[in-house]
């Protein structure tokens, strides 16, 4: 499978934030995969996946958009990938529901006038890297190993929960992001809060609570030796980087910690155009860490939080 990647068309569903707030997540992913000889076919005129998987079993309408995306993907390939953890969660669980629940499958197909049985594989880019590329091959393609940055891999909720449906990794102690970071040369720092919730959409109405969550997560990462964290979810990034000012305002003992999308680090390691990484959009300036990466020398200097507050445009 890994031998003939260039012939394999992987369908890419960006989702709403990947063209706007999380553009660097998308751009660095696409460029990195080009370096790994993997073709991505971005769906055209995709619609919102609805962001949250409906918990009521009879909420068929809540599954319609995700089912439509899966069916749209089927026209272009048998593997669908998406980066946003929420999109990934909704698409994988919807696909799972279509595979395993006859009533849901029948109703969705009747409504959409289709015959979809769930045969598209919904894979996260980390899974593609592991299964289709292989971390050894990724390692061999690295031109600028991230040698001197101690990174805490942060998984959050949506990638791994609920484990019976997501089947992403060990729900209590996932390793996929760890393995990825190791393969691009990072010094991986394991920390117990890597699967804690960042507060998610509570940021809309409960900033204080999110500040507490984010403080707990980042402090725990730092306590275990991390200089920065890596993640995959635009909402986690928003809560942990964009609104990190909430923590610094509330907790005087807290000093800023840079947050990276894992694809930004992959892009850096594979030598893509650094401009695509969008580090100027990060609220916590990762500059000093990046300099240390390039100079391959340690630094203990503190990073700074930019002052301009950013508001969640779409909430």
């Amino acid at each position, binding site marked *: 499978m890994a031998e003939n990647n260039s012939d394999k068309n992987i369908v890419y569903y960006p989702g709403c934030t990947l*063209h*706007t707030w999380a553009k660097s997540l998308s751009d660095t992913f696409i460029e990195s995969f080009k370096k790994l000889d993997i073709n991505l076919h971005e769906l055209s*005129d995709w*619609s*919102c996946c*609805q962001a949250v998987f409906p918990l009521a079993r009879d909420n068929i309408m809540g599954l319609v958009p995700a089912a439509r995306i899966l069916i749209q993907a089927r026209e272009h390939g048998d593997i669908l990938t998406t980066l946003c953890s929420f999109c990934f969660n909704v698409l994988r669980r919807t696909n799972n529901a279509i595979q395993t629940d006859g009533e849901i499958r029948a109703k969705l197909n009747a409504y959409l006038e289709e015959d979809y049985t769930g045969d598209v594989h919904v894979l996260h880019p980390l899974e593609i890297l592991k299964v289709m590329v292989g971390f050894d091959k990724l390692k061999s393609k690295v031109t600028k190993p991230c040698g001197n940055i101690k990174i805490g891999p942060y998984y959050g909720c949506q990638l791994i929960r609920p484990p019976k449906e997501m089947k992403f990794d060990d729900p209590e102690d996932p390793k996929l992001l760890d393995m990825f970071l190791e393969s691009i040369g990072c010094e991986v720092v394991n920390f117990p809060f890597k699967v804690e919730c960042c507060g998610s959409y509570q940021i809309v109405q409960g900033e204080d609570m999110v500040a507490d969550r984010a403080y707990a997560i980042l402090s725990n990462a730092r306590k275990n030796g991390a200089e920065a964290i890596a993640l995959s979810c635009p909402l986690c990034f928003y809560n942990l980087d964009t609104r990190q000012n909430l923590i610094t305002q509330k907790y005087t003992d807290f000093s800023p910690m840079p947050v990276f999308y894992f694809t930004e680090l992959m892009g850096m390691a594979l030598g893509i155009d650094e401009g695509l990484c969008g580090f100027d959009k990060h609220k916590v300036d990762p500059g000093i860490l990046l300099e240390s990466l390039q100079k391959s020398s340690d630094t203990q200097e503190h990073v700074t939080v930019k002052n301009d507050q950013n508001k969640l*445009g779409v909430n």
Partner: protein
Amino acid sequence: MKANNESNQETATIYIMGKKHLVPKALTILNALEYAGYRLIRGCGCRGGFCGACGTVYRMQGDYKLRNALACQTKVEDGMYLTQIPFYPANKAIYNMDELEPTAQQIIDLYPEIFRCVGCNSCTKICPQDIQVMDYVNAALRGDIARAADISFDCIMCGLCASRCPGELVQYYIGLLCRRLYAKYIAKPAKHLAGRVNEIKDGKFDNDIDELTKMDTVKLKELYAQRDIEK
């Protein structure tokens, strides 16, 4: 029950708001309504498929599918159950184009109900112009104004999308806003247009217009028939 003397090949049985009518098959729905005795004051405009006033929904006997038509553009068919939706209440935001930004946030500010789109695609299914209505709503939602303007370009604002939307969106006003934002803030300005406007202001065509206004009808018709576009 007109045209009883006509053969079945030439007539169609249609049901207008539930009432059975036998009408010539050659008629459009609009003509058939008039043939059946309706005097159309609303629900009828240009009769050329452009104004969007004659949006019509119908079902065929024995088929669950809800179909759509512009009454002036669609011939009657045997077994049509139809009604016109000449007007549907719609909330239109009032804005000053000079004060807007071509962003998703702008659209959300003016039409916050856009978030109520659940992706059911009912709007697309009912569109008599075959526009991918849900796609342009989603393009607008993710800030791709140019795409939303492009997809919605053929909208004639008949309002059928709004009539079917469970999220109570008025899609066509969102499309209109996107086209306006695109034209004002995204599309390159048409330099030749600005040049022509200046020529008009400078009086370049004043003499020609004067001449035309004084011309007798016969000569005017002659000239009209000789326009470049007719050659």
